[in-house]
């Protein structure tokens, strides 16, 4: 393996490593625009120039493979001068847009200018004008003047999505990034171009002008949009609640996880957080009296529901009780539900799977047809009908229609997604007690007698298990809206009211109890999960070859 010296630190690296990667390994950050670890290397931006001894000219660190005995200087006078010059070239035609540019605050031009530039501009000529505020796709806005022609976005569309929408046109200082004529940047992963664009040339239509990036707080989490479980950062606005009509979550950004999503996420997940602050959120326990919803305190709601459940169990027995849990719930919510229904109420009719009538979009990259983040978890915890020798959801509805089911506890589901509207309506109208627990109202919640508000994925701690059996943590980014509570808290409180208390105070307690009880989770603990998640017992990590599909 070649041995090289970077800024008087010696390091031995794999053959074929580039200088920029080698420097990264010892914590030296070489500025870069066009280099992205997930894309091919082109070396067009020239900001990563370093001095390599015995080479006549400065070399681009991103493209130069290490050779034994190389001595690299990343920050001497010559290199600094080169960087300053490169920045000066890049900024020749760059507009003075920072005040109105959404990238300001996370812009690499700004950052590197402050770190390496700080020259006085010598430009007296007029700047070249290009297209501004040009919508090039459903999610992306282009400002050609701000583009520094790093071609990251072009390479993304060529190499990752292979949709080839973008290209570089014209010559000289009129060179411009544009979509090919007649084409739109409209693929399932177009949002990623915004992330990788080092400047404010590509901005997010959804996020545009809503707030400023420095107002945002970042909380690591996992996308609940499908069973891939892409790692994300939730960017939320904690201190300026008057912005953008009071929405708390401003945007989601992918978080690097080498084993799951690498640097990317799909647009469906990226823009799928709107329900968190939607008007349809259930913000307090409520019950339906004569067709009208009436707000209740948690105390009253738990009391009333507990009394009714007790009455029905006593009169009709556990067979008349159906529970439809949801793979939208965290492992913790599901486990607390399992304990509550199986141990406290001794109910057997528990299922979680409602097969959607419309098959969800799936591809061989990130998106999976199963649009639930925790189906694998629910299966492993043992909540499908088969595990409990109880009724399946379809059977429950059929039973309900025949008046055999007296109580139904539905979590999160919109049953209409799996069954016909009339069927659901008929079935639910025949059940004495329908309790809906979820984050948002839907057509199923409207048919219930009681609605309990549960906290959405940004409002609680917990874990999801993705399709490959990887347990990953979500974190509380904002306070639960209104009176809503995490699912496991609701089940814990109900259980206590019905005579069996669960000693859980935070999500970690539930997970650790789960890890003790359920085989697949044996040996795990909440503290051990870490930022990239851990695999369940009996699962293996994806091989390089399988992941190869991601790197393309």
């Amino acid at each position: 393996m070649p041995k090289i010296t970077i800024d008087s630190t010696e390091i031995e690296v794999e053959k074929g490593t580039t200088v920029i990667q080698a420097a990264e390994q010892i914590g030296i950050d070489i500025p870069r625009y066009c280099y992205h670890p997930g894309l091919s290397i082109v070396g067009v931006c020239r900001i990563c120039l370093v001095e390599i001894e015995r080479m006549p000219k400065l070399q681009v660190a991103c493209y130069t493979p290490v050779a034994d005995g190389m001595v690299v200087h990343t920050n001497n006078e010559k290199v600094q001068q080169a960087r300053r010059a490169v920045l000066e070239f890049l900024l020749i035609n760059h507009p003075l847009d920072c005040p109105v540019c959404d990238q300001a605050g996370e812009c690499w031009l700004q950052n590197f200018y402050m770190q390496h530039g700080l020259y006085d501009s010598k430009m007296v000529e007029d700047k070249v004008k290009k297209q501004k505020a040009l919508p090039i796709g459903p999610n992306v806005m282009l400002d050609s003047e701000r583009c520094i022609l790093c071609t990251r976005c072009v390479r993304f569309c060529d190499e990752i999505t292979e949709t080839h929408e973008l290209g570089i046109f014209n010559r000289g200082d009129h060179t411009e990034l544009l979509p090919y004529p007649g084409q739109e940047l409209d693929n399932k992963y177009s949002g990623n171009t915004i992330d990788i664009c080092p400047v404010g040339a590509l901005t997010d239509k959804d996020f545009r002008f809503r707030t400023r990036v420095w107002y945002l707080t970042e909380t690591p989490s996992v996308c609940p949009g499908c069973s891939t479980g892409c790692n994300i950062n939730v960017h939320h606005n904690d201190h300026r609640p008057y912005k953008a009509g009071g929405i708390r979550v401003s945007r989601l950004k992918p978080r690097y996880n080498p084993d799951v999503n690498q640097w990317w996420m799909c647009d469906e997940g990226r823009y799928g957080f709107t329900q968190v602050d939607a008007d349809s959120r259930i913000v307090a326990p409520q019950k339906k009296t004569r067709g009208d919803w009436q707000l209740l305190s948690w105390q009253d709601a738990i009391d009333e529901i507990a009394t009714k459940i007790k009455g029905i169990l006593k009169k009709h027995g556990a067979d008349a009780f159906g529970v439809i849990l949801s793979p939208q719930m965290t492992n913790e919510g599901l486990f607390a539900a399992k304990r509550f229904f199986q141990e406290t109420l001794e109910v057997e009719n528990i299922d979680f799977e409602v097969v959607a009538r419309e098959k969800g979009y799936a591809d061989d990259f990130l998106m999976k047809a199963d649009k639930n983040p925790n189906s694998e978890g629910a299966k492993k915890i043992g909540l499908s009908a088969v595990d409990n020798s109880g009724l399946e959801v379809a059977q429950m509805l059929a039973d309900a229609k025949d008046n055999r089911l007296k109580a139904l506890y539905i979590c999160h589901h919109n049953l209409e997604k799996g069954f016909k509207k009339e069927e659901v309506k008929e079935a639910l109208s025949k059940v004495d007690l329908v309790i809906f627990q979820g984050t948002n109202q839907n057509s199923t919640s409207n048919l219930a007698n009681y609605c309990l508000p549960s906290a959405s994925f940004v409002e609680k701690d917990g874990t999801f298990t993705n399709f490959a059996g990887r347990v990953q943590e979500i974190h509380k980014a904002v306070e639960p809206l209104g009176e809503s509570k995490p699912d496991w808290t609701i089940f814990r409180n109900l259980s206590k009211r019905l005579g069996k208390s669960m000693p859980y105070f935070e999500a970690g307690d539930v997970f650790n109890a789960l890890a003790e009880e359920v085989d697949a989770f044996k040996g795990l603990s909440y503290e051990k999960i870490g930022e990239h998640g851990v695999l369940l017992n009996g699962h293996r990590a994806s091989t390089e070859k399988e992941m190869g599909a991601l790197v393309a």
Partner: protein
Amino acid sequence: MNIHDKYKPLTFWEKLYLPAIISGLWLTSMHFFRNLTLHILRALRLRKTADGAVTIQYPEFLRPLFPRLRTMHRLTKRDDGTPRCVACMMCETVCPAKCIYIIADEKLENPEIEKMPESFDIDLGLCIFCGYCVEACPVDAIRMDTGILEISNLTRKGMVLDMETMLNLEPMQDRYVKYTKEGEIVSQEYLKQDLSK
């Protein structure tokens, strides 16, 4: 070090306190009698000016303001009357009192401007008149030169300035101290306010 070491010990005379007290009383009573005499003389019309006090009888008399004084905010306009502000939120960010509330709006019809405030409120009840907002503005859209110091309202809501109001405020002209070229103050008489207005 004992803190008392820093001080010179009092002499016996000082320790008596009485002499110091009496000299203090002497000073204040001299002011008292002098001012009393001056006031009486003026009341008897034997003197014209009121030297007995440094008080300015506000609001009948106004103090001249210095041009750099920070007074109520205003927003400057472009030639077409729209706000100069581009809603960059620098002022909002820098404001130590967190009393500026901006909501930005997209102006796609004019890509040269792109961004403009949809609403721009300053809560004067919280503002500490530090002037940082003026310093921070990259486009000279906000200034504190209206000369309006009398800011009061019966409700907290009323203390909030909205964009419309701030756009319509004018810079203050005639309550400034005037200078000569050499930097000397020309006129600094107290200006008599027209109370009929």
